[in-house]
């Protein structure tokens, strides 16, 4: 690394002072929980998180904003934890509450909502590269894969300790065979794409492609490491050898995906669930240069040497967890969550960083799927360590971590902007303001239905296939989506329940940057292009929802005692604003809305439709 410090004669040292001493491997160090720094600016700080924020802020003299108003806070919290806007009544009650504990109580209430698991489960499905088809040319459907999605939502809703959540995803079938949730969670292993219709040597290549999918996803999702880079050669930037890679392959090479009958539904009845079926340990050669025709020595199974400081025997790990499996997966589960002599410290850092990312829009480590040498260093290393330590000492429960983060002053601050601080810290990595966050595709679709009053809030169950334009379906010789769907309550489900076919993503999702499920994704792209605008302006689903929204607004105006049976224009604008933006219109906004509605040829449906497109609808402060 030393030669990197000098570029064309210019020494970079001044820039390096804020970097950890050993930039390549900080993530591989054991957890070292730092002391909470003293608060600089005690009045602003609400909890320990803020002390870390202030420590860095005062180094640069760039201090964060005060709290946003209650109207903003409730909308922020609702979208953040459930992905659904608060009702008018909920907003009014919260804003008018005099109780100093009202905010904390609201957070606690939202965390106990079943919609929490739907919201945060979707984040995890990106990381788990979840899909319900094989991918590639034929892209056969996997009609039983939804059970993994449900298991993820259930695990989050019951606040399953994260270490158990991880262990069950790699070995739940063995660790807790009597709990259907444990076995259903092994759907993580099977979630990725699979090459099909191949013969001969290509079949063996396909097997190793599958292994690569599993090992890469395991590394990325749990440890934020690009282990897949070591398939053909030692990792260029991280201490991961090719042998390490194939040792990890060893856990999965004997197994395969298979359906099991599991009682995971509400009814208690068995349903077919796509799970992982382990096998017996088998010979596991290193493939030189990743080539199936250049097999090297048998490496068995094992873990990453760099995260196994004591060189613990896998047998001891399996003993430690108390459940034996021939393919060694219980040992893998133990290692992943072993804070003292395994990967547990990194596991904790990676998940608290993901929580931070979704609460703030950007992680403390921006490259949340890459904590390795070419990933970004944390902006607040001490805070990351402290949060990771807090997670572990709190029994790996995520809900208290959400509470901690959301009760901090840095989370609650406003979006206020000023040029002086902007110039000092244009990237806002000091977190001096709240960044407005754009709704992801799924939440945008959910919000449209929620605003229109059509959203079917039913939880769980097999995936649904909503209406898709036939223009989008007819792309080849076979249709990969039904052409005769009529939308209704059955398809107006939350987007997490929409069938995820890899070669035929619902255009609404494809257009708004939903990943294709071909590899683990930590950070979604956020594009802004005209095809998105076209969708919101002209798509039949959006237009239909605008019609339902209009009917709802007129009915509400009528109920509110509006003259003319709900046809009073100010009442319509007022009701529509509350439904779309969780607030009433200002006087000027009221006039603008009424002015539009009064124009010849305009109507309530048009007015409601255009609200779906507004920046305020799509961005949450």
């Amino acid at each position, binding site marked *: 690394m030393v030669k990197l410090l000098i570029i064309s004669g210019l020494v970079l040292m001044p820039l390096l002072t804020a970097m950890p001493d050993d930039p390549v491997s900080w993530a591989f160090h054991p957890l070292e929980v730092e002391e909470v720094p003293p608060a600089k600016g005690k009045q602003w700080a609400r909890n320990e998180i803020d002390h870390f924020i202030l420590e860095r802020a005062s180094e640069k003299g760039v201090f964060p904003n005060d709290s946003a108003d209650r109207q903003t806070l409730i909308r922020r919290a609702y979208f953040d934890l459930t992905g659904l806007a608060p009702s008018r009544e909920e907003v009014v009650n919260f804003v008018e509450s005099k109780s100093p504990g009202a905010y904390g109580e609201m957070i606690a209430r939202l965390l106990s909502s079943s919609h929490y698991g739907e919201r945060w489960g979707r984040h995890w499905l990106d990381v788990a590269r979840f899909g319900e088809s094989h991918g590639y040319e034929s892209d056969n459907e996997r009609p039983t894969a939804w059970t993994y999605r449900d298991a993820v939502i259930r695990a989050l809703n019951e606040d399953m300790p994260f270490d158990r959540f991880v262990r069950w995803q790699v070995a739940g079938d063995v660790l807790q065979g009597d709990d259907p949730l444990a076995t259903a969670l092994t759907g993580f292993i099977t979630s990725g794409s699979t090459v099909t219709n191949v013969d001969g040597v290509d079949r063996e290549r396909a097997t190793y492609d599958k292994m690569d999918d599993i090992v890469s996803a395991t590394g990325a999702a749990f440890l934020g490491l690009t282990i897949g880079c070591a398939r053909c050669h030692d990792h260029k930037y991280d201490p991961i050898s090719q042998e390490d890679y194939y040792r990890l392959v060893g856990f999965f090479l004997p197994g395969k995906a298979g359906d099991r009958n599991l009682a995971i539904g509400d009814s208690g009845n068995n349903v077919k669930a796509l799970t992982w079926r382990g096998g017996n340990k088998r010979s596991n050669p290193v493939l030189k240069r990743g080539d199936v025709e250049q097999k090297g020595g048998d490496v068995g199974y094992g873990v990453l040497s760099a995260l196994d400081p004591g060189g613990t025997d896998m047998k001891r790990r399996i003993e430690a967890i108390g459940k034996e499996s021939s393919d060694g997966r219980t040992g893998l589960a133990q290692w992943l969550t072993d804070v003292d002599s395994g990967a547990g410290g990194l596991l904790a850092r990676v998940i608290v960083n993901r929580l931070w990312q979704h609460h703030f829009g950007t992680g403390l480590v921006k490259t949340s799927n890459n904590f390795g040498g070419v990933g970004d260093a944390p902006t607040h290393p001490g805070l990351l360590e402290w949060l990771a330590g807090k997670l572990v000492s709190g029994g790996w429960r995520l809900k208290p971590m959400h509470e901690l983060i959301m009760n901090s002053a840095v989370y609650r601050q406003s979006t206020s902007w000023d040029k002086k601080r902007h110039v000092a810290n244009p990237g806002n990595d000091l977190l001096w303001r709240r960044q407005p966050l754009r709704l992801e595709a799924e939440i945008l679709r959910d919000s449209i239905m929620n605003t229109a009053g059509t959203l079917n809030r039913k939880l769980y169950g097999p995936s649904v296939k909503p209406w898709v334009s036939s223009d989008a379906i007819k792309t080849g010789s076979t249709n990969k989506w039904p052409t005769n769907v009529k939308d209704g309550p059955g398809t107006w489900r939350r987007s997490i329940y929409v069938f995820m076919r890899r070669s035929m993503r619902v255009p609404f999702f494809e257009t708004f940057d939903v990943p294709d499920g071909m590899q683990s994704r930590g950070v979604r792209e*956020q594009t802004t292009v005209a*095809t998105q605008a076209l969708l919101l302006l002209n798509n039949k689903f959006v237009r239909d929802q605008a019609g339902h929204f209009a009917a709802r607004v007129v009915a509400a105006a009528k109920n509110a005692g509006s003259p003319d049976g709900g046809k009073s224009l100010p009442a319509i604008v007022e009701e529509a604003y509350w439904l779309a933006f969780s607030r009433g219109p200002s006087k000027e906004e009221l006039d603008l809305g009424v002015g539009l509605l009064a124009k010849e040829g305009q109507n309530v449906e048009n007015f409601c439709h255009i609200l779906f497109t507004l920046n305020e609808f799509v961005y949450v402060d």
Partner: protein
Amino acid sequence: MLIDASETGNLMTRRDMLARAGCGFGSLALAGLMSGQDLAASPSARADKLPLVPKSPHFASRAKSVIFLFMYGGPSHVDLFDYKPDLAKHAGKKVGEVVDTKGARSSGGLFPSPYKFARHGQSGHWVSDRYPHLSSVIDHTAMLRGVYGHSISHAPALFELNTGMIRTGFPSLGSWVTYGLGTDNQDLPGFVVMYDYRGGPIGGAPNWGSGFLPGAFQGTPVRSRGTPILNLNRPEKLESPQQRELLDYASALNRRHMASRPADNALEARIESFELAYRMQSAAPEALDISRENDATRKLYGIERGNPGEYFGSQCLMARRLVERGVRFVQLYSGGGHGDNNWDAHGNITGNHNKHCAATDQPMAGLLQDLEQRGLLDETLVVWGGEFGRTPHKQGGSGRDHHPFGFTMWMAGGGIKGGTSYGETDEIGYHAAVDRTSVHDVHATILHLMGMDHERLTYHFSGRDFRLTDVAGEVINSIIA
């Protein structure tokens, strides 16, 4: 008010700089970076106001538009354009016995091309027998046979060819071009991307992203299967004047909303995107409708149903229709998804390249001929290349590995002196050896042909003026007419 770039956190970190430095990029303008001054850069201010209106180039341009044919996965230079008869002499030898192989990842024996090469046209360009149609129009091309890149992996190599940097988050070539020149047709996106029907390239949208440039300059992808752009028809019972009124209303509210969030430039980009969408409703259906072309033209591109070029040919034809209508930059991807669905021929070079060459040969030749017949070739720069070439040695059964140390690109039309070539690899096609050409050089040349000085096309961000070519890049004058 002048806003210094986006707030979206795409800032280049110190680590980015290290990664870039470690991969051989030149020095950075550190003075600006460390001073933190908010220098008033007028192009940035202009871009924030009216992003896509046509702007004057720095000097008279040779080309008005670019069509970039991107062969995703890495087409093999030694099997297509870079004839290496000496490979036969060294067949089976380890590469290291012939050249210095630092950086090599696989080390099978040297592997002569299974294809026959011949000289074509007046230029005598060597082309393999995989490209019979292209060979017939090869005199249009200037061959760059000594290009090199910095990454052996797909994603960083893609980023390098598209943005000049191996890290994600930097503006793409198409974004820089539309930032510099705007676009001539305000009713269509200035920068259109069409990826392969088997999937997008690895790395996805950052390959056509605008990085820290305003969002209006990012590439607009059209769908890779079926109808290219969905939702172009207004809903029933919503007439155009009423939709216009709705958009004016939305725009008024959006601008009020944005007033207190001036640095969130995605908000501005969103407003622009609705305006463009409104105009596209009338312009895009016609522009993308290749059924309006006569049979002779369709035949030229080889898009009859069942032809190997059916798919890519349709995209080439759409690209011609777009540049004809004033779209500034079109990028087409041949190859998508995984494995042999793109040019990534690890296991079997002929199995892979036979397929992809057949899918692109007639379409590319048809495009050059069609542009010429319409008098458009002089003002349309066609660029061909992939993120790297492939090794002169064998991998797997009969495949070749990724190879960034020396590979071929070509350009045609728009100010290019056809029949020329620049750069050579060594005797086995391993290293770029003579007139080595960096991706920055390629980008500098493209900008030059578009009438822009790559050193003056800058954007002020995070305290310094950024360029597509960082602090490097030399225009390749010898291939310019």
